[in-house]
């Protein structure tokens, strides 16, 4: 039974999958552009979201046209969401990619961001135009959110005896500065110990989090810590740990968060057992005041990095031959908004040919922010043989601890490039960081040669399904399976149904007894012969019509057979024969009659078998 259920599940799954393919994708390529706000200060970062919807499997990444006075920085995103829809029995697929940018205003004015364009397989789409009004730093913004008073750092709302507490690490931060926000469940230790389930934080994607880049530090285990609050021992459980990087200046409001807590019952691996109660706990809203970058001392190359960073630059070799490639590795490390900050500013590299760059990230969320390193690798080839130099690579950031801008600069790197001799081979690019290993580069792509040494004269028939032999090969397993199932059914019925077993063995038994009767006739033994002939008939009738024939008189047997619907002629014949045999058996019989009575029995058995469609 379980096996059948599995089969059905697989069939449904396959039907679903092929149902998708059967439905033709509908819909068209579309682009939707939205700004998180329409007004901003100079230097402020404003989030921009571009959503591309397509009926094809891989919506393209959009191209944002340059806008004088605005700079665009790709934040990330780009994951593809897939959804299916069934309308009138037809299934259609829709793919959606959302790409997030940060827009930084460099001067005052009203800017229109339009003409965001995507191209997918010959199909083009242009996004809607959005406007951004930029005012001078410090000037008031017509933003209703900015007028709300800032909230306290630690607030909680009671729900019965359990409370959800939101705790931001600070209430005032720079744009791009890390703000740690933790959510705790607080309550009496006994009550905390009874908590069996914690629901999802469903509404955290609104409010403050919508205007921040948010990273989450996963909570591996809900550990109960004891704290004394108001003179009472309380249990505290850390439920969520976020690190938020505000994208724009202003007052950001954190909406209350609500989660469902299951209390009581018995802890189980999958769900609580026994009586339990679900209560909703809600945190207090709080405000975060985000201040723009200070104007004073801002370096030209500053592009929004906030935190503490280090910068190093290395090359994999300093002595080169003309045309040899080398790798410049620039590594930025530290703590802050490293994940979203721009790459360091490179010096003039016009004396080098530049090839594909690579970026390697090793960033993780830690207790008090986001830390790690990003390594940028540039494959460069000197254009001429001479001593040359890679100038300082620079990176500016704002350190919120001392509220000062810092600019890092690497030492210049000197390279010695010697000329290549006559007859030396062409350039071989060394892979990024590959040391002495040489990367094989495809320099020419051409038409491929004919196939030789292959069975090109063989006739290969694709349409095997037209060949009778193949059809037979395909049909045979069904016959085999059907035969096996019939045989299994027959064997099972023989074991479980005695009537069926008697019925099936009746002809075989009758033939065997008839054989013994023939031997008795040959030996001339009358008693033995008539006993055997009587047994042949009585046993066959008993087995075939499922009658308790042994010990019955010929008349009783005849009556029972009439009730079973056996034709009267056969019944009469049987009764007379059995009575005659009984008389012969006990009254003595001539040996000459034995053969005729054997024949008579065979004839009668033939008639009885004919009723059931058998042959004697």
């Amino acid at each position, binding site marked *: 039974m379980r096996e059948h259920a599995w089969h059905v599940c697989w069939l449904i799954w396959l039907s679903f999958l*092929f149902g998708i393919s059967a439905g033709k994708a509908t819909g068209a390529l579309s682009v939707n552009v939205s700004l998180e706000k329409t007004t901003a200060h100079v230097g402020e970062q404003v989030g921009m979201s571009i959503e591309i919807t397509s009926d094809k499997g*891989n919506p393209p990444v959009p191209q944002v046209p340059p806008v004088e006075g605005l700079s665009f920085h790709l934040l990330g995103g780009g994951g593809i969401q897939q959804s299916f829809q069934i309308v009138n029995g037809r299934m259609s697929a829709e793919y959606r990619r959302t790409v997030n940018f940060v827009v930084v205003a460099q001067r005052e004015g009203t800017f229109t961001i339009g003409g965001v364009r995507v191209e997918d397989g010959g199909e083009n789409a242009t996004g809607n135009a959005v406007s951004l009004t930029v005012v001078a730093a410090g000037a008031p913004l017509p933003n209703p959110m900015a007028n709300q008073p800032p909230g306290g750092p630690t607030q909680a709302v009671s729900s019965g005896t359990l409370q959800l507490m939101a705790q931001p690490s600070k209430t005032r931060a720079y744009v791009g500065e890390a703000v740690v926000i933790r959510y705790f469940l607080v309550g009496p230790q006994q009550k905390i110990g009874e908590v069996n389930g914690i629901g999802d934080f469903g509404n955290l994607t609104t409010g403050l989090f919508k205007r921040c880049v948010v990273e989450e530090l996963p909570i591996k285990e809900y550990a109960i810590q004891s704290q004394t609050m108001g003179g009472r021992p309380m249990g505290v459980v850390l439920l969520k740990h976020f690190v938020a990087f505000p994208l724009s200046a202003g007052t950001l409001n954190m909406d209350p968060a609500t989660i469902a807590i299951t209390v009581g019952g018995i802890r189980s691996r999958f769900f609580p057992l026994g009586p339990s109660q679900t209560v909703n706990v809600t945190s207090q809203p709080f405000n975060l005041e985000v201040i723009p970058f200070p104007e004073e001392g801002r370096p030209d190359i500053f592009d929004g990095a906030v935190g503490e960073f280090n910068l190093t630059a290395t090359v994999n070799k300093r002595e080169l031959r003309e045309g040899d490639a080398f790798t410049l590795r620039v590594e930025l490390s530290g703590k802050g908004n490293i994940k979203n900050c721009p790459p360091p500013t490179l010096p003039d590299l016009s004396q080098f040919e530049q090839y594909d760059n690579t970026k390697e990230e090793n960033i993780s969320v830690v207790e008090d922010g986001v830390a790690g390193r990003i390594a940028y690798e540039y494959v460069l080839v000197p254009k001429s043989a001479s001593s040359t130099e890679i100038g300082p690579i620079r990176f500016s950031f704002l350190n919120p601890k001392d509220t000062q801008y810092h600019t890092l600069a690497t030492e210049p790197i000197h390279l010695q490039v010697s000329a290549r001799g006559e007859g030396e081979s062409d350039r071989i690019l060394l892979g990024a960081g590959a040391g002495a290993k040489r990367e094989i580069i495809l320099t020419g792509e*051409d038409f*491929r040669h004919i196939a030789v040494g292959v069975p090109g*004269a063989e*006739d290969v*028939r694709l349409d*095997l399904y037209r060949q009778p032999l193949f059809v037979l090969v395909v049909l045979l397993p069904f016959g085999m399976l059907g035969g096996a199932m019939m045989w*299994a059914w027959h064997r099972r019925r023989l074991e479980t149904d005695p009537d069926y077993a008697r019925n099936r063995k009746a002809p075989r038994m009758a033939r065997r007894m008839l054989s013994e009767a023939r031997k008795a006739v040959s030996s001339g033994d009358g008693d033995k012969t008539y006993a055997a002939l009587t047994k042949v008939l009585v046993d066959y009738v008993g087995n075939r019509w499922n009658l308790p024939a042994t010990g019955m008189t010929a008349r009783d047997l005849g009556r029972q057979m009439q009730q079973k619907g056996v034709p009267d002629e056969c019944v009469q014949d049987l009764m007379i024969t059995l009575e005659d045999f009984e008389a012969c058996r006990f009254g003595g019989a001539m040996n000459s009659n034995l053969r005729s009575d054997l024949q008579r029995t065979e004839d009668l058995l033939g008639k009885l078998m004919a009723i059931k469609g058998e042959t004697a």
Partner: protein
Amino acid sequence: MKRLPILLFLAIELVPIRVGVAADLPQAYDSCSGNRGAIFRLANSLYEQGQLAQAEAGYQFLLDMGVRNGYLYYNLANTRFRKGQLGPAILEYERALQYLPRNRDIRHNLEFVRNLMVDEELKPVQYGGTMGFIIKMHSLLNLRENLLGLALLLWMTAILYAWGALCPDSGMTRRTGWLRVTLLVLLLFGVLSAGIKIYQNERQHRAIILVAATEVRTGPGEDYSAAFSLHEGTAVKVESKRPDWVQIRLPNGFTGWLPGKDLEVI
């Protein structure tokens, strides 16, 4: 019985086939005595020597004899491309792919030749994820391989299920429960895959434009207005046929009528 493979080999490779040889084959093939393997090898040799017309005649002769396989189509396609026949080359590459769907050389050359086409290639909807994987598996085998695999799966499944019916309590039956379910799933996939391919083989005909440029008209006749034009090598789907005219459809939904001589079904 052991001699059967040898006899088959002799029948296929060594017995000369003389029907129509003298009439159709150039003199260069006289030494082959109608031996199909020898004709193929000689045609390859002529191709390598740059005698493309002679090589094409050899490959074409094998096709006329009823020989069908991917390598033959591939070599003929290469020959036609080198002769400057873009459309016929694409047609033969497409035919070759039906026999050898995993052959990288065919795909490479087809892509290479398609880059020279005038019309932009209209690709069907691309699926990703599970659907993409299933479609990839579906297109991995040709129809013959699919059917043979299906027959093998059918036998294995039938044997295991028959064994399960006859010996329900045996250790083997208990141990092979998952194998039976897996085989059944593979079998269903194989049946669906083969069914789709057979349907495509029988009903869905694709064709390639063979002429440099042709006008696609709104109806089957020169008096109908031209809807759009197509160029050599473009693949179209044949919707219906009339004497001398064929109704076609493009992947983007454009439809119209073409003279039958301007295209050939793959």
